[in-house]
């Protein structure tokens, strides 16, 4: 087990950009990523000529969005460039930090764009190394294993469908305050419970929307950031852990290894769950949020059901979660928009949904059952 990367990394986000989310029928993923990049560079107040590192994220289940595909559109020859296949903001952000710490680059642009909705890229297929076995059993879509994990949680801890429903209902309440969100129509817990099952015990609202959209960030050293932006967002800690032995792991579906990421990121930041003002928990399914609330220490293991039902994650609650609506209501962009929202909230620029005096955010993501990453972010440069 890694003991972590040690002291605060001295890395900051100085630019954040996003396109509209939902449907962008006439643009390629690359063009969407360029538009997000333009917004991020403008926010950072720098020209593309200042970029000497590029990290792109391939759109899921496509060949779109490689660094070599993006270079000609962005018109840059960065010293360092690479592409993450399963992408996602957290892994990309950590890679950018490492590139800067290693001296490979000083100012890194991260981009992601997808037209998954317009291109009708679905997720109704088995995923992962044991995919053929799953396909033979009709075990399709991430909803299957997520439903199994939820069922197991209900069995072990008495969690109810209504308690789980508060993940989606709370996020819909946040989405109603977010003009960018795809799903903004109000949804009560009764509305939720009235929805038919997709994969029981999960309903439509427990599963992410497939959408088009892009996001981009500019990352540099905290030292340089102070000269470039009046409100840089610093990385106070980062951690990753994998479970890539997949089915061979003792308890694949319940993901207890997430607790190791939590321990590491809190230790690196010198902070604990009580210090977190905002949580961004990747929500391809609502079950991920249920699990991460527990493994990241916001409640005890097995206690996320009551925690959710008590309303802590809702607007006005003591732990606002996914204040943009998350992937369940805002859009599905591989958790890039979670990072975008975290930056907006920490800068006090989140409009109607701004959480007062929010200073420390946890950005936690998982790549399904295989790996996870967490970052603690703040406008303060030290804990």
């Amino acid at each position: 087990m890694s003991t972590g990367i040690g002291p605060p990394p001295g890395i900051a986000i100085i630019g954040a950009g996003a396109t509209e989310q939902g449907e962008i029928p006439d643009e390629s993923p690359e063009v969407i990523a360029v538009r997000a990049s333009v917004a991020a560079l403008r926010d950072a107040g720098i020209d593309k000529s200042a970029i000497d590192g590029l990290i792109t994220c391939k759109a899921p289940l496509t060949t779109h969005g490689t660094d070599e595909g993006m270079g000609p559109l962005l018109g840059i020859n960065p010293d360092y460039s690479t592409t993450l296949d399963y992408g996602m903001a957290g892994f990309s952000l950590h890679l950018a930090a490492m590139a800067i710490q290693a001296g490979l680059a000083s100012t890194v642009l991260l981009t992601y764009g997808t037209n998954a909705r317009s291109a009708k890229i679905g997720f109704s297929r088995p995923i992962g190394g044991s995919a053929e076995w799953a396909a033979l059993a009709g075990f399709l879509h991430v909803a299957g294993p997520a439903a199994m994990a939820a069922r197991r949680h209900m069995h072990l801890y008495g969690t109810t469908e209504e308690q789980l429903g508060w993940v989606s209902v709370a996020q819909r309440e946040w989405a109603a305050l977010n003009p960018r969100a795809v799903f903004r129509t109000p949804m009560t817990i009764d509305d939720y419970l009235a929805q038919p099952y997709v994969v029981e015990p999960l309903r439509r609202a427990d599963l992410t929307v497939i959408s088009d959209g892009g996001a981009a960030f500019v990352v540099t050293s905290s030292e340089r950031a102070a000269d470039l932006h009046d409100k840089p967002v610093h990385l106070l800690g980062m951690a990753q852990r994998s479970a890539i032995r997949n089915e061979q792991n003792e308890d694949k579906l319940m993901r207890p290894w997430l607790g190791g990421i939590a321990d590491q990121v809190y230790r690196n930041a010198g902070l604990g769950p009580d210090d977190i003002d905002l949580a961004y928990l990747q929500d391809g399914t609502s079950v991920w949020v249920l699990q991460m609330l527990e493994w990241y220490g916001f409640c005890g293991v097995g206690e996320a059901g009551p925690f959710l039902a008590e309303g802590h994650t809702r607007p006005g609650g003591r732990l606002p979660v996914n204040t943009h609506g998350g992937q369940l209501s805002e859009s599905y962009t591989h958790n890039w928009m979670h990072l975008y929202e975290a930056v907006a909230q920490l800068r006090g620029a989140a409009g109607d949904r701004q959480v007062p005096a929010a200073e420390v955010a946890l950005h936690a993501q998982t790549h399904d059952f295989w790996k996870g990453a967490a970052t603690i972010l703040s406008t303060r440069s030290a804990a």
Partner: protein
Amino acid sequence: MSTVEKPLPDLSDPVTAPFWAATREGRLTVPRSTVCGYRLWPPEAVCPECLQPGFAWEEVEPAGTLWSYATYHRALDPAFAGDLPYVVGLVELSCGLKMYGIMRGDPGDMAIGRAVTAVFEPVNDDVTFVRWQLV
């Protein structure tokens, strides 16, 4: 019924062919490393413990308990549209390994911890699937 064919296993894959040969005979088998004795599911091309190829296929009791399950109410794969609602179980075998499989019986009867047993269902001359039912 669905007009889309259900997926079938690739019987030419040497990593998994012994499993399908055994199911044709109504036997449930799992691979065990001939070097270190590690038993795993699903099969892989090398043993993940000793990193050597070479497995012997060992017959195991076709029984276990239901560790968890998911009930499909929507055909996320059109090939399974005619089966709705259907239940996929994660079965913890008596030998400790876990296997996914379609459950037979009334979806409403499923419960975690219940004993299950394998059902061998031929779909053609070459392929026999393993499904599961409550005991």
